[in-house]
């Protein structure tokens, strides 16, 4: 019985330790990577998109594409009308 509990505590200590260790290493490596990249390729910047990460709606890319095409079409049309 106490063996099981001991093992559980061991798993907790090792597990949390490892999770923190790994993510802290990742913080440093990621930060270093970003600094390196932004030093050597300073111009290549894109805006962080504002939408949430995991899209649950269906194929938003099609929507986006559609909206873009629509916008272009309507824009062109408006220009045509102005002339």
């Amino acid at each position, binding site marked *: *019985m*106490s063996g*099981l*509990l001991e*093992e*559980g*505590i*061991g*798993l*907790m200590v*090792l*597990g*949390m330790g*490892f*999770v*923190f*260790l*790994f*993510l*802290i*290493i*990742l*913080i440093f*490596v*990621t*930060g270093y*990577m*970003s600094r390196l*990249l*932004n030093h050597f*390729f300073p111009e*290549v*910047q*894109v*805006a*962080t*998109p*504002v939408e*949430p*990460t*995991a*899209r*649950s709606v269906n*194929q938003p*890319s099609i929507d986006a594409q559609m909206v873009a095409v629509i916008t272009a079409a309507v824009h062109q049309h408006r220009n045509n009308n102005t002339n």
Partner: protein
Amino acid sequence: MESKLLNLFHDTGFYQLELGQFVMICVGLLLVFLAIKKGFEPLLLLPIGIGAVLVNIPGAGFMAAPVYDAAGHMVSPGGLQYYIYHGGIETGLFPLIIFMGVGAMTDFGPMLANPKTLLLGAAAQFGIFATVIGAVLLGASGIMDFTLADAAAIGIIGGADGPTAIFVASRLAPDLLGAIAVAAYSYMALVPLIQPPIMRALTTPAERSIKMVQLREVSKREKIIFPVVVTVLVAMFLPSAAPLLGMFCFGNLMRECGVVNRLSDTAQNALINVVTIFLGLGVGSKLSSEDFLNLETLGILALGLVAFSIGTAAGILMAKLMNKMSVHPINPLIGAAGVSAVPMAARVANKVGLEANKQNFLLMHAMGPNVAGVIGSAVAAGVMLSYVAG
């Protein structure tokens, strides 16, 4: 012919149905109801619920194993869920393919803009390991029949990440897979109910009103190299997490690299949808009455709730600590998003933040810890698989 009629009657559900099966069909229908009416993670809980109904129809043979004669010819074919479960879940293929698709849907931009939020994704995994202790105590005290492997598989519910939970459970505690998957997805759906009270209890209105500095822009190049870096780090530090994180990063690399859009689109749509349907039916096959209707299931449901709550609290407390030590202010609410449950937990953080301050949009700030939580729980899963097997 009378005997045939009798046979036919003996084949009916009325004649064969056992109470346990009846109860489990009701449980399946309840999951379907929650999925449709309450919007509880319907993409998974609807197929799981139907899978539970089908597997408990007596005599329908959805989990029947195929029978072969000595020469290897099929005498009677197996059931649909038998093939799905043994082909896709027992092997681990389905959760890994889904994780690849989730990777292809994930934007690491907000996390790369503020890598310190990875700490929040680490802290929130405390829910996992605290729950392991809880399960181990229940097992050690003899109340429930949990081994260390069972305890680890139950703890992973606190990771708030469906495919990770299913992957770990299929390897460490296949008998508990049904209950663990149902608990994981149910609590992920309940995040908007579970988290806010804990968030309000552990923070002051002033803390909840903290505005964070706007995130810097992240270059395409950083987003491309990040999944490669994670893969290499996993290879070096924790190979047992490589199946999960390797596939996750592969999906993310397909998304970000910009040269394989057709593969990325398929991974995010047709492929993940197909696998989700089958994963749900396969998980549902573990909701048979003998596997599900016992005290352990109640323990798992209770422990899962504890796991979510402790994870939320640990994330918030870590965020409060970081706020004290950081130059830039950190709103403690985003710590709660560290449990993952992407993107629900980030939306909850945003919503609770807006209640305190109507101009305070935390969504993008919360997406950092949110996706960090996915990495964190995959790392925790790797440690567990290595520790329990080792």
